[in-house]
């Protein structure tokens, strides 16, 4: 190779030019600063690649070397150098924002800033905001999210704890039961002192002690066709940890009607199942299970053992699904059923397809009167719930 090759100049563009290009799309935007600076304020869709990690991490952030790639930093120096480095790596269409994010802000252009978070929140959620997939804007989404948990029991307890810790702004809890000593082997949100107390109020105390940012709404009631639509309407995501089939079918029918995503798990002895139902995007609960099983195959109808820690595993998997749905990142379990078998420590994934003949979400699904939501012709014969 000729040693006389002239070094290419880096194209510098003014913030307003960059903003116009970004607005037009098809631009990879890279923030070449340190994580704490990024956390304070960054451009929307700016991907953080700190200068020291450029060589290692740029390929993941900007896989296409022919794509328009715009870099920025605080004042324009680090991004200029990084742009030179990228050109040397073969990137063909690189530009650096002159004056960096400071000039950008001076021109009155918008940034995603930590301003929406208080100083305490910046500290509390720092391990979230450091993740590019969450960031300050993601944390604000979590703080603005409303999640309804059906059941504050074996699944609901761990799910609620992690959602509360994550800063889900509103957590609704539906349960009409009181804390029993036999719950405490797995329902870690309650404790010995609270035996006899309603589960919703016990859970509220634990959540409020864990994270004062969370607004807990207690629904000390049993779901039925008369109250479900009104109840779930205000929430963004529903978590199904119900202990009986009638409630599961009722929730399914109402959530499809209102197009609410449902993270659904169930547990028995050493085994758990989990899937995420997003109406009309993937299958619904009835596509997976068109008919509930009879009593002898539906042990929720009678007392059965369950490994406490397995409930915890499934509950935290539910919390993980909720957080991904709220953030809009990753791959939720839509169209996938994940089985967990704790004795073998084995996960199995099965495909779940939309049923074109589904009576609830199928193309020719009939209109259902409110009072008929969740109904089965002779369901009471099978299982009293």
């Amino acid at each position, binding site marked *: 190779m000729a040693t006389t090759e002239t070094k290419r100049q880096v194209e510098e563009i003014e913030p307003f030019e960059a903003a116009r290009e970004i607005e037009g799309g098809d631009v990879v935007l890279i923030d070449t600063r340190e994580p704490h600076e990024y956390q304070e304020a960054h451009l929307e869709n700016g991907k953080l690649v700190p200068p020291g990690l450029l060589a290692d991490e740029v390929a993941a952030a900007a896989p296409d070397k022919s794509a328009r790639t715009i870099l920025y930093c605080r004042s324009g120096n680090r991004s200029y150098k990084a742009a030179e480095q990228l050109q040397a790596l073969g990137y063909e269409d690189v530009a650096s924002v002159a004056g960096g994010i400071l000039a950008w802000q001076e021109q009155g252009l918008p940034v995603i800033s930590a301003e929406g978070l208080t100083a305490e929140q910046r500290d509390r959620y720092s391990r979230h905001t450091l993740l590019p997939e969450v960031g300050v804007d993601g944390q604000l989404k979590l703080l603005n999210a409303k999640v309804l948990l059906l059941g504050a*029991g074996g699944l609901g307890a761990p799910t609620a704890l992690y959602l509360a810790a994550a800063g889900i702004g509103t957590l609704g809890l539906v349960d009409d039961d009181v804390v029993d000593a036999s719950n405490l082997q797995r329902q870690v949100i309650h404790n010995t002192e609270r035996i006899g107390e309603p589960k919703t109020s016990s859970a509220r105390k634990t959540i409020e002690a864990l994270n004062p940012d969370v607004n807990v709404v207690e629904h000390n009631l049993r779901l039925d066709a008369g109250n479900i639509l009104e109840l779930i309407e205000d929430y963004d995501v529903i978590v199904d940890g119900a202990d009986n089939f009638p409630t*599961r079918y009722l929730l399914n029918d109402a959530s499809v009607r209102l197009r609410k995503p449902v993270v659904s798990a*169930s547990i028995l002895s050493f085994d758990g199942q989990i899937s995420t139902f997003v109406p009309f995007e993937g299958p619904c609960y009835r596509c997976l299970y*068109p008919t509930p099983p009879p009593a002898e195959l539906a042990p929720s109808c009678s007392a059965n053992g369950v490994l406490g820690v397995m409930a915890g595993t499934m509950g935290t998997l539910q919390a993980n699904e909720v957080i991904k749905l709220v953030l809009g990142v990753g791959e939720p379990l839509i169209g996938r059923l994940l089985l967990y078998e704790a004795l073998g420590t084995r996960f199995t994934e*099965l495909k779940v397809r939309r049923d074109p003949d589904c009576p609830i979400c199928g193309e020719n699904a009939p209109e259902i009167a409110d009072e008929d939501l969740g109904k089965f012709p002779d369901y009471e014969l099978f299982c009293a719930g």
Partner: protein
Amino acid sequence: MATVRIPPVLRQQTGGQPEVEADGSNVGEVLRALTAAHPDTESQLFGEDGDLNRYVNVYLNDEDVRVLDGLDTAVSDGDTVVILPAMAGGS
């Protein structure tokens, strides 16, 4: 020979075994081999008409046999047949 994964609610009928080996060239034959070896499973898998009960999902490896050829779905050596009834436990 296929491996049949037994759900917790049927394990009492298989002597506690979570997996059973069963022979057959299609899903129906494999399940019939299972019910022959463990007769108590039969009424829970099959209705009186001989069809699979609607509340029992059966998967060949990771695919629901309802979207394949049902009980006629061909089974190869080493395949896994998963029997999966709905579970409602959450508390």
